[in-house]
């Protein structure tokens, strides 16, 4: 872990994630205004002493909306990724451990799903399920599952032929012990790293869905939706678009940098 601290990208990612985490935990407590309260006299204002980040087209305080929105936005990214990590690694580990024709069938199926671009795939699923935060989250996790499965499978496959696994097989260990104690602890690293990086993609796809009106619905404070609602006013006041846009960028970058550093820390060739 000392390597991790020395990794400049890792430190930057950790700092960004800390800011985001504080917003998620304490945002609603420290927000200066009710995020839904209209202040009709001060619509589309730039930053001022009263409204630090300005106001939107209804005069709602952008800082407050941002702080309230952190929860739903981050929860969306983390939630969607976690579902896809769990589903993906279950499928991938099964395919990798069982092998043979079952592996072939599963993997060819997943390859087919991988061939469809993520966003298109998500839109397809949301169209079928209907718009809404929960549906969008499910859609993103389904779209991410094939990629996670592929990574966990390749990770398992490379571990399975290691000599310590062969040694366990030669000892006559049960399949259960071999998978749980020998394979998974060594295969988990790349899966976690990939998951962390994917949170940022999930946030961005979530924002895109919000923007397209297929994710969170007004008056939610989800960041993507904020950008979408404000886009027709962006020439009169760029702040309304820039503030939530920047927040999305910060969160995505935080997860991305952190994930990159995590990958380097897990890589035995780089550590020590």
């Amino acid at each position, binding site marked *: 872990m000392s390597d991790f601290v020395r990794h400049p990208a890792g430190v930057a990612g950790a700092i960004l994630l800390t800011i985001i985490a504080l917003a998620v935990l304490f945002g609603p407590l420290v927000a200066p205004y009710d995020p839904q309260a209209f202040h009709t006299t001060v619509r589309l204002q730039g930053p001022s002493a009263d409204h630090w980040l300005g106001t939107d087209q209804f005069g709602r305080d952008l800082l407050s909306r941002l702080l309230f929105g952190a929860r739903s936005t981050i929860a969306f990214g983390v939630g969607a990724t976690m579902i896809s990590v769990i589903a993906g690694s279950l499928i991938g580990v099964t395919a990798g451990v069982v092998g043979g024709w079952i592996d072939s069938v599963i993997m060819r199926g997943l390859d087919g799903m991988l061939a469809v671009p993520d966003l298109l795939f998500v839109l397809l699923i949301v169209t079928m399920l209907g718009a809404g935060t929960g549906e969008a989250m499910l859609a993103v996790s389904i779209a991410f599952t094939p990629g996670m499965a592929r990574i966990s499978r390749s990770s398992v496959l490379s571990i399975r032929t290691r*000599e310590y696994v062969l040694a366990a097989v030669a000892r006559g260990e049960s399949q259960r012990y071999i998978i749980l104690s020998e394979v998974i602890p060594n295969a988990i690293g790349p899966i976690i790293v990939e998951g962390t990086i994917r949170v940022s993609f999930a946030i961005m796809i979530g924002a895109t869905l919000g923007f397209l009106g297929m994710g969170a619905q007004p008056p939610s404070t989800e960041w993507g939706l904020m950008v979408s609602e404000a886009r027709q006013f962006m020439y009169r006041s760029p702040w309304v678009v820039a503030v939530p846009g920047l927040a999305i960028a910060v969160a995505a970058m935080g997860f991305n940098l952190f994930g990159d550093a995590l990958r380097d820390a897990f890589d035995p060739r780089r550590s020590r």
Partner: protein
Amino acid sequence: MVEKLGNLPAEASLDGLTVLAIRDYSLNYNTTSGPFEALKSINLEINRGQTLGLVGESGSGKTSLAWAIMRYLPDNASEVSGSISLLGENLRGKSHQEILEIRGRRISMVFQDPSTSLNPVIRLGDQIAEVLVRHRGLTPKQALTEGEALLATTGITKPAEMMDRYPHQASGGEKQRVVIATAFACNPELIIFDEPTTALDIITARQILDLFDRLREETQVTALYISHDLGLVSRIADDVAVIRRGLVVEEEPCDRVFSAPQHQYTRDLIAAVPHPNRRIASPAPEESASDLLNMTGVSVRYGETSILTRIFQPDRELTYGACDVSLNVRLRELLGVVGESGSGKSTIAKVLAGLQDFDGSLRFNERVFATRKSINTDYRRAVQIVFQNPDASLNPRQKIREILSRPLKLYKIVPRSEIPQRIRDLLSKVLLPEEFADRYPHQLSGGEKQRVAIARAFAAEPELVICDEITSSLDVSVQASVAKLLVDLQRDTGTTCIFITHDLNLIRQLAHRIAVMYRGSLVDLFETNEAENAERHSYTRALLDAVPVPAGTESSPSA
């Protein structure tokens, strides 16, 4: 900084002797935990036509020195002091352009593994020609003709044909000959050989060494020969320098190093070179000893085809990992299995460890096993395997305590409450301190890790331990102590051992009987003291000839 040193080479060639002079050269690598001293004030000289053998274990800095001479160092290297001079010209003062002119033309290099040092997508002929075009200004056509002539001097029988091949179409030995031809192409003043035979099979390695000897005779080239193998260096070098942790501890003419080694480390190294006359085997089992294990007609096919392949390529041939091997192992014996890579010796180990499907049958302790599936836990407890590479055979996420306790729990060797005590006993048996129980494998050295792997095998109180090349990833000095440990354990516990190796000199120290494998078949089986008898198989003879007893390491006059 860079001056024209126009008259210096002429001056240097007047005294005509010192080709390479390294003076007080020190090199550090900047790491996250501070500077690491890779080379500490090295002083070396090589005179024209001489070969200097540079011997050291892994991590001693010998390859760093080679790259320092080639002026190709990683970014985190910092040269602290000293000079490296080629015919009196200090290479450290050269610009990048000048160095490019020197590399390949005046100093060339032969690498360890020819399969990675040749570009796989360029024909072998073009790879030689490139050097000739670049450094000797030949036209491509002339270069190809010249390249062919060069290949012919390296003993390749059909050089024209070889020129047209890609690297994957040539054998390891042929590729190394091409690399050597390239290195000699511009009559360089110095050639650096970095373990050129380590990646090759024993017999091929011997041929490459003979080639090296002959070319040196013919061209009078100056060479720096880097190796970990003191025995090998003793055969080809004029002078030997022994390097340890970046420090040259001894530099002497070759015969002096062996007859009167000055430094304790050199003495240890010499003592560690395996020699068949220094038997360290446990007492031999009696002639009448019964068989613990019988293999009858064991075959292993690789590349078992799928239905689709069978339909589309019905006449595809199967490759045999092992072919009709019948072998018996006597109770309390140490049986050596010798062969080149691909000879099937590891396949046999995997069959015996129940890791590989096979045809034929195994009889172990009066029980017969005809398939891998029929191998039961009793057999698996009684037959333990130790793998070649301890880095790979110990789970990096488990502490040594967990690794050693696993067989104890699995086979219920001792009650749960006695496990901690048993782990301490096991560690002390393999001469490791008991604190190691709380460490992770990466906190141990290679030799220590292999001791843990051996302890794990013996934890199961096995009747048969299979050792698959357990010493070949270790340094020579560590190798000797691990081999000794194994023999001691065998004597104390009365376990039977199968020791698989490619090192004939080592196995002749340890084994009671030796089996020789060649291309999947068992070709010879003999008592160790009959190794030199006339009735040995021709392949056994070839193997024995390829690894002569290292000169100067005899402890008693050779028979």
